[in-house]
C-alpha cells in the first residue's frame, strides 16, 4: 500500500511538472493519507493521528532550497523501475554472433523465460547454458528447476553442465525435481572413474543406494544391488578385478596356474558361478580358455566329455557349439592328439569330419573314410597330406589292407 501511494505521488508530480511560477499547491502528506483512507477496499487502513505543524509555521519550499536542489532530492526517490530492455531476440542474436551483450537487464520472470525460450530456439548450446547460468544466479533453485523441467533441451544442457562440474547433489535435486528418475544413473556416474579403488566405489555405491534406491526402477535397483554385493564380496576376499568374468578368470588362474589341481573343479569357482548368477556360456568360455592356456587337457576332457545316459555314447557336453568349441582349442594350439579325442564326441559326423579337415587332424579323417569304406574319398584326401608324413604312410597302409571298399 505504501508502495502504491508513492507510485501515485510520482504520477501526480510528474503529470504536472513542478513549476515555482505557478500557484501550485503541493499535496500535503496529510491530505494524501486521508485520500487513501476513503477507499476501504485497499486493505487495512493505518490509523494516522499525527498532527503536523500548522501550515502557517512552515516556510514555503521554494525558500528552503533552490529548484535545482529540489530536483536532486526528488530524483533521489528510488522506486523499482523497469529500464527499457532490448528484445530477447536482439540479445540472442548478439550472443550468437559473439557481440557484447548483457543479460542482467532481464529481471522479471516473464523476461527471463522469454530469454530462455529464445536461447533454446537459437539451437546454440553456448547461449542456452549462458542463459541458464544467468537464471541460476537470479532465481531460486526450485523455481529454476520448475522451468527447466518444462523444457527438455534446457534440462539436458543444465544436467550435462552439473555433471561436468561434478555438482552431484545439485544434479540429484534436478533429476528428482523434474521426475526424470531414470537419469539417477548419471548422478552415480558423476565423477566416476574407471580405475577408482574398490573402497571408494563401495562408499559411493552405498551412499547412492541409501539416498536414491527407493526412486529407482526395479531394473536399476536390481543392477545396483548386484553391483553392491559384488564389490562387497571383492573387498571381503581382497580381489580387485573389474568384471565378473575377469574375476572368474582370476580364480581359474590361481587354481590352475600351478597345474596341481586335484580331481574336480575347485569349489571356489563353482561357488562363484552360483552366487553371481553367471550365464553358462560365459562361465564355460572362461573355464575352457583358462584350461587351454595352462594346458590342462585332462581336466578339460574330464569337465566337458560326458556319456549320454541312454546310449552310453560320449559327447561334448557344453552350451558352446562344437564348432566354436573345437576352434578355440585349436586357437590355443591344443595338440592334435587332444583335438582327436574331442572330435569323435561330436555326434554329427559330417561336422566332425569337416572340422578335422580344417584343423588338420589327418588321422581322424583317414579313419573316418576307412570306416565308411570310401576309398575314393580317402584317395582324394591323400592329395592334401604331404607325402613324407606318417599320416600319408598310414593312409597308404589302410588302402593296401584287405578292407572291403564300397568304391
Amino acid at each position, binding site marked *: 500500500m505504501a508502495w502504491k501511494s508513492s507510485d501515485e505521488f510520482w504520477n501526480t508530480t510528474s503529470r504536472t511538472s513542478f513549476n515555482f511560477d505557478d500557484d501550485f499547491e503541493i499535496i500535503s502528506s496529510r491530505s494524501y493519507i486521508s485520500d487513501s483512507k476513503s477507499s476501504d477496499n485497499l486493505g487495512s487502513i493505518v490509523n494516522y493521528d499525527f498532527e503536523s505543524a500548522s501550515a502557517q509555521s512552515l516556510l514555503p519550499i521554494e525558500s528552503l532550497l533552490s529548484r535545482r536542489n529540489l530536483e536532486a532530492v526528488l530524483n533521489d526517490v528510488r522506486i523499482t523501475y523497469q529500464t527499457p530492455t532490448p528484445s530477447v531476440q536482439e540479445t540472442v542474436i548478439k550472443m550468437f554472433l559473439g557481440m557484447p551483450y548483457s543479460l542482467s537487464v532481464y529481471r522479471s520472470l516473464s523476461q527471463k523465460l522469454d530469454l530462455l525460450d529464445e536461447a533454446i530456439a537459437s539451437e546454440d548450446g553456448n*547461449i542456452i*547454458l549462458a542463459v541458464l547460468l544467468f537464471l541460476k544466479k537470479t532465481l531460486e533453485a526450485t523455481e529454476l528447476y520448475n522451468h527447466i523441467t518444462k523444457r527438455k533441451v534446457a534440462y*539436458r*544442457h543444465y544436467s550435462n553442465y552439473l555433471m561436468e562440474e561434478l555438482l552431484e547433489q545439485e544434479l540429484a535435486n534436478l533429476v528428482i525435481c523434474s521426475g526424470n528418475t*531414470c537419469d539417477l544413473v548419471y548422478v552415480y*556416474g558423476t565423477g566416476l572413474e574407471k580405475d577408482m579403488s574398490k573402497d571408494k566405489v563401495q562408499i559411493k555405491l552405498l551412499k547412492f543406494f541409501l539416498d536414491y534406491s527407493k526412486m529407482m526402477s526395479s531394473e536399476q535397483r536390481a543392477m545396483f544391488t548386484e553391483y553392491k554385493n559384488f564389490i562387497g564380496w571383492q573387498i571381503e576376499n581382497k580381489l580387485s*578385478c573389474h568384471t*565378473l568374468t575377469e574375476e572368474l578368470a582370476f580364480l581359474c588362474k590361481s587354481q590352475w596356474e600351478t597345474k596341481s589341481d586335484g580331481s574336480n573343479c575347485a569349489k571356489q569357482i563353482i561357488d562363484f558361478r552360483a552366487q553371481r548368477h*553367471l550365464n553358462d556360456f560365459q562361465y564355460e568360455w572362461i573355464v575352457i580358455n583358462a584350461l587351454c*592356456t595352462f594346458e590342462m587337457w585332462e581336466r578339460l576332457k574330464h569337465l566337458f566329455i560326458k556319456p549320454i545316459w541312454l546310449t552310453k555314447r560320449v559327447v561334448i557336453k557344453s552350451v558352446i557349439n562344437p564348432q566354436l568349441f573345437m576352434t578355440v582349442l585349436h586357437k590355443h594350439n591344443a595338440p592334435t592328439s587332444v583335438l582327436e579325442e574331442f572330435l569323435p564326441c561330436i555326434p554329427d559326423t559330417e561336422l566332425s569330419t569337416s572340422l578335422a579337415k580344417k584343423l588338420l587332424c589327418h588321422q581322424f579323417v583317414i579313419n573316418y573314410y576307412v570306416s565308411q569304406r570310401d576309398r575314393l574319398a580317402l584317395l582324394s584326401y591323400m592329395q592334401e597330406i604331404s607325402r613324407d608324413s606318417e599320416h600319408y604312410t598310414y593312409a597308404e597302409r589302410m588302402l593296401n589292407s584287405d578292407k572291403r571298399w564300397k568304391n
Partner: protein
Amino acid sequence: MIYKKLSSLSEISKAQISKILNSCSGLKDLVLDPKIIKPLERICGIRWLKANYVEKIFKLEDNIPNSSNPQFYFIYTSLSTLKKLLQQIRLRLKNDATVADMYHIVIIPRFLYVFENMLEEMGLFGVVKLYSLQWQPLHLDRGILSLEIPNLYRRLFVQHDLSLLPIYAKSLWHLYFVIGKPRFHFALGAHSISVLKQLDTLYENLPNTDKVEADCGAVIMLDRNVDYVSALLTPSTYTALLNEVYGINCGVCEHKSTGTPEHDQKFNRIPKKEPIQIILDSTNDSIYRDIKNRYFPEVTSILRTLTRDLRKEGENSRGMALDEIKKYVSTQLQATASKMKYLANHLEAAQTIINHLGHRFEMQQDTEQLLIQNKGKSSNLAYLEEVLVTENNRNAALRLLCLMAITQKLSDSEVKSFWQKFLHEFGYYYGFVHNNLLRAGFLTEETSASANLPNIVSKFLTNDFYVNINRLKQAPVDPAKVSLKAPTCCSYVFGGAYIPLIVQIASMILCNTPLNEIKTKLEPLGPFSIRNEQGYPLEARTILIYIVGGVTYSEIAACNLLETLTGSTIIVCSDKIISGNDLMEALTTV
C-alpha cells in the same frame, strides 16, 4: 581446380593462427593438447611456426611447462580440460610474480560463455586470455574434408548438447568465401535443419561471400542418426577396415610396436597387430590410390601381385649393364624404393586385418545381411551372444546390439538378457550405457510393443526400417549377385547388403529427380528442409555432402563409386571420419 582450393584452405587457417600468435610480440611457446598435434601438423609445419616466433613446443600434461616465454595453450572445447589447466595456472601465479600477457588459451573450435564465467570466478579474468579458433576443414585426401573436432557425435546425439552445433554453419560460411554459395541446399535431420537456420542468421548479419559463381551445385546435409546402419555394418573396403582395426586419426593410420601379451585377462588369444605407418594420401601413394576403395579380398591379391612385380624388377636390375644400372638408380630406384616401403606397410596392415577379423568376417557379414533382410532372428541373437562372450570386445558386442535394435527390433526381455551378460562381461561400471542407448535413439522407452509379440505375428507388422529401405531401394534383393570385384552398385561397400542413405539421396539429386518425389520418399525418415534459389535442377555437377556427427570411410567409398557412375564430383565433409567403434566409444563414456 576445386581440389586445389580445398587443399589450400590451410592457408586461411594459418592466417587465423598467425593473428592469434601475433597478439603478443616476441618469442612464445606452444603447449598442445596431444590430440591437437596431428591436425595442427596438417595445417602448418614446424618451420612456419618458427617463422611466427614460436620457440618451443610442449605437450599438455599434468604439469604446465616452466618457461619465461608467453605460453599459448591449444585445447579442444572442454570445460573440464580448461578447468584443470586454469587451476594449474593459478597455482603457478601464486608462486610467481605475475607477468602480463603470459597465458593465452586457444580453444578449438570455440570457447563458451561459461568459460568466461569460470575465468571470472577463478579470479583469472584479464590475466588469462581466451581465443576461439575455428580452423578451416582439413583436406585429408582427394575430396575428403574434415573439421577434425572430436566427440561431436557424443555431444550432439548422446548428450543432446548443442554448444558446438553452430560450428557447422560457421564452417560453411567460411567455405563459401572460397567456393561460392551453392544455390541449392538440402538438409535431412533436426540438427542439419538447424545448421541451415544458423547459416541464414550469419548471412543476415555478417558479410556474404564475394564469389558470384559457386563451384558446387548443391549441399546435402544429413544427421548421423538418420542413417546409423551405414556406421554400424562391418565394412568391406580396405580403408574402412583399416579404420576398424587400427583406427585412423586425421588421415594417418599409425601403430607402433608394443609388447602385447599372448592372452587378455580372460585368456582369450590376442591377435597380433603389426606396426605400421600409412598416410592415406592417394596423390603420393599410388598403391593406396588403387586399393583404398576395393573390396578387401581383392586387395590382398593385388598386393601379392605387386610384390611379385617389384621383386621381378629387382631381379632384372641384377642383370643390367653398368650404364643401365646408372640410369635405373637415378630414375627408377628411388621410386621403387618408396613404393616398396608403401607396399610393405599395406601388406602388414592387410595381414593384421585378417588376424583381427578373419575368423568371424563371414559369419558377421552373413548375420548383417540377414538383419538387413529381416530374416533369422533367433540365429542372429545366438550370434550376438557369441560375439559378446567370445570376443571380449565391448564395442563389437554393443555395435551388433545397436544394429539389431534398429533393424529387427529387440523385445524388453532380449535387451535385458543381453544387458545382464554385458555387465558381467565388461563391468557394472557401464550401468549408464543403457540410458545412453535410449538417448541416442537405439532403444525406445516403450521398446516398440511389436517387438514383444511372438515372431510370427511381428513379422506381419510393418517395421519402419524395412519400409524405408525398400522405398529407397537401399537393400539389393540378392546380395550374392552384387559384383564386389568390379562394383557397379554402391552396396559393395557392405558386401552387397546395403546402400548408404547419403548415396541414394545424392544420386536422386544428381539425376534431377523432381523435388516432390524426393520429398515423398524422404519424409518418413525425419524432418527435412530444402532451400532452392533457382538452383535445381543442378547446374554444376559438383556437390558437397556434409554429415553432422561423423562420416565413415564406407560412405566415402560409396560416394567415390557414385562419382564414377554419374560423372560427377562429390566432396564429402564432416566433423570427423569415424567408424562404428567411435559411436560405441561415445555411448560408453560417462
